[in-house]
Structures are given as structure tokens and as C-alpha cells.
């Protein structure tokens, strides 16, 4: 029976915790019986290792079993995506098909289905609309000008009235003071 603090076989197989391993190591240094027991375990393991691993006589059949290979369609699909040339060709074909589809299904352009009378009528309508816009603009301009002229005329009248009143007041003041002063700029009667 071993006198080791822990099972020597656990120690030898490294199944002890680190502190336990160190404890047994320390014990074995001073215990000849445990050292001999460990030597026997080493010899036994060395003998067991004389039985070498063998090479497997043949690869596992699963590796090449056709049951597990991808289907023919799957292989074609994988090969297709694995070839950049085929992929490029497919892209070009797809683009061509898209262009063809677009050309076939595109709607007719503007004016493609109009008669001469339609065109004339549309032109007349456009001209009439343009003339109407011009007339409206001209009318507005004339109205603005007339309004502007009226405003200026009224302002001038007001200014003249104010000037006349001022002169009359000045004349009255002179008259009241007894002086004879001619009114050089006044041509009307002082009423």
C-alpha cells in the first residue's frame, strides 16, 4: 500500500490539482517505495506504448461514398458559379436580354401618333395662349403707367396749391405791415 498523501496513480496520470501534485512530488523525493511504484507505472506505460498506432488500411468509405456527393444539378450549379468566364457570359446574356425586353416593350415616343391637324391645333392653342399672356402683360403695364401719371399729376397740383397758399399768406403779411412790395412771382389776383 502506498504511503503517498494522494493516490500515486492519480499523480502519475496528472489527475490531481496543482497543489496536490506538488505535495506528492515532495513526498516522492523522500520515499523510495513510492519512487519504485512510480517507476513501475512508467515501465508499464512504456510497454503499452510499444503497441504503435496503425495506419488505417483504407480511407473511410464515407469520404468517397457517392450517396453523400452533391447531386448532378448541384455539381453543375457549383461549377457554374466557380467559373468566372461562365459567370461573365451569363452577365452579358442577362444584359442583352434586358435590352431586348426594354426595346420590345417600350411605349411610343411623344408625337408619334399625331396628325397634321392636331399639330396645327396645338400650335394655334399655344399661340393663342401666348398672345393672351402678352395682352394681359401689356394691359397691366398700361394701367400701371396711367396710374403712375395720375399720381404724379395729383402731387404736382398739391404742390402748386401749397405754393400758392404760402405766397398768399406772405402777401397778406406784407399788406398788413403797410409796405408796398411787388409780388414778382405772383401773376394772379390776391384774393
Amino acid at each position, binding site marked *: 500500500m502506498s504511503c503517498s498523501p494522494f493516490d500515486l*496513480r492519480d499523480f502519475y496520470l496528472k489527475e490531481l490539482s496543482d497543489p496536490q501534485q506538488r505535495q506528492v512530488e515532495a513526498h516522492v523525493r523522500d520515499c523510495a517505495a513510492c519512487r519504485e511504484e512510480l517507476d*513501475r507505472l512508467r*515501465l*508499464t506505460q512504456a*510497454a503499452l506504448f510499444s503497441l504503435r498506432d496503425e495506419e*488505417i488500411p483504407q480511407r*473511410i468509405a464515407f469520404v468517397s461514398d457517392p450517396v*453523400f456527393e452533391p447531386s448532378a444539378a448541384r455539381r453543375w450549379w457549383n461549377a457554374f458559379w466557380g467559373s468566372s468566364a461562365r459567370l461573365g457570359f451569363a452577365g452579358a446574356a442577362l444584359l442583352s436580354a434586358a435590352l431586348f425586353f426594354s426595346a420590345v416593350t417600350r411605349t411610343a415616343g411623344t408625337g408619334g401618333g399625331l396628325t397634321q391637324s392636331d399639330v396645327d391645333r396645338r400650335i394655334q392653342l399655344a399661340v393663342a395662349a401666348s398672345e393672351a399672356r402678352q395682352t394681359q402683360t401689356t394691359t397691366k403695364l398700361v394701367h400701371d403707367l396711367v396710374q403712375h401719371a395720375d399720381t404724379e399729376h395729383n402731387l404736382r397740383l398739391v404742390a402748386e396749391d401749397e405754393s400758392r397758399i404760402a405766397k398768399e399768406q406772405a402777401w397778406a403779411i406784407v399788406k398788413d405791415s403797410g409796405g408796398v412790395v411787388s409780388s414778382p412771382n405772383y401773376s394772379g389776383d390776391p384774393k
Partner: protein
Amino acid sequence: MIFRAVEDTDLIRQASRGSVESYNLLVSRWEKRMYNYLLRITGNREDALDLAQDVFLKAYQNLRKLDDPGRFGSWLYRIAHNEAYSLFRKRKPEVDVDTVEPAPTDIGITVGGSSVFPIELSLAVASALDRLSPDQREAVVLKIYQGFKFEEMAEILSCPVSTVKSRLYTALELLKAELAPISPRGVS
């Protein structure tokens, strides 16, 4: 340290999504270990090869059930253990494989009646292993040759760690007695 461009866990994930190529690579990494494990517990090359194929096929079919890819190794050995014991039961349906005492042989592992290992020591080892019960032999193979920890062995064998240790240590005592007998100077 051997650098692997793709880890096993990545291969397992890809294989579980249906990548046969990834699984093939995985098989190529594990097939030798699995074959030797099965060879040592069955003692027969043909059985070991057939079982290895079954194991990898079954593993592929059930790969999606593997929750943790990091436990692929012990999971694979668990399948192998079950497949091997299923074979044992088919061969000897009337015998309880847990209590079977194998008949002593002196030719070790054989294929078609001829010795696989001609070296004397290898023969002695094969003979000593042959004298162990299947459970004891499997415990030795998993621990000494495959390097599993006790917890992993318990998972593979579906038994408590204490049972694993008991089987292994009994086997080691028997092997020690045969392969490393006490030297005369050690006998009082």
C-alpha cells in the same frame, strides 16, 4: 505545435450545415485515432474498420444534435463505444459484456490467425491487454492511448468517474504485474 488553418469546431459547424467537404476533412483528421481505438478494444482490423465507418456515418447523421462542437471528440468516442458494444452483444448475445472474462490468449491481436505485432514486447503487451475484461481494456485505451481525462471517460462510457477509476486502476495493477513485475531487490 501544429497550426491548423481551420479548426475542428469550424469544420463541425460547416458540416452540420451540409458541407460534405468539411466533414470529409474532419474524418481524415479523426479516422486514424478512431480506427486504433476500435482496433484495441475489438482486437480485429476488419471489425475496427467496419465500426469506424459506421461511427463516422452515424456521427454525420446526428451532427446537428451536437450542441457543443468543442465536445466533438468525446461525443465521437461515445458513438464508437456504443457501436463496439453493440457488435459485442450481437456476437455474444447470451453473455453480459460487463462481466465477461476473456479467455487468455498468447497471440495477442490477430488478423486471420496471424500475429499483427511480431516484436516480443508488443506480443506481451497485446497478451496482457487481452487478459483484461473489455471494460478494463477500454479504460486503458481511453486513458493511456487516447489521453482522455476521467470526466471525459465517464461521459464516453456513461458511468461515474469512480467506476472509470476503478476499472482503470484494476487494469493497471494487472498490467503492472505482467509488464513491470517487482524486481528481486524490491522484494523483502
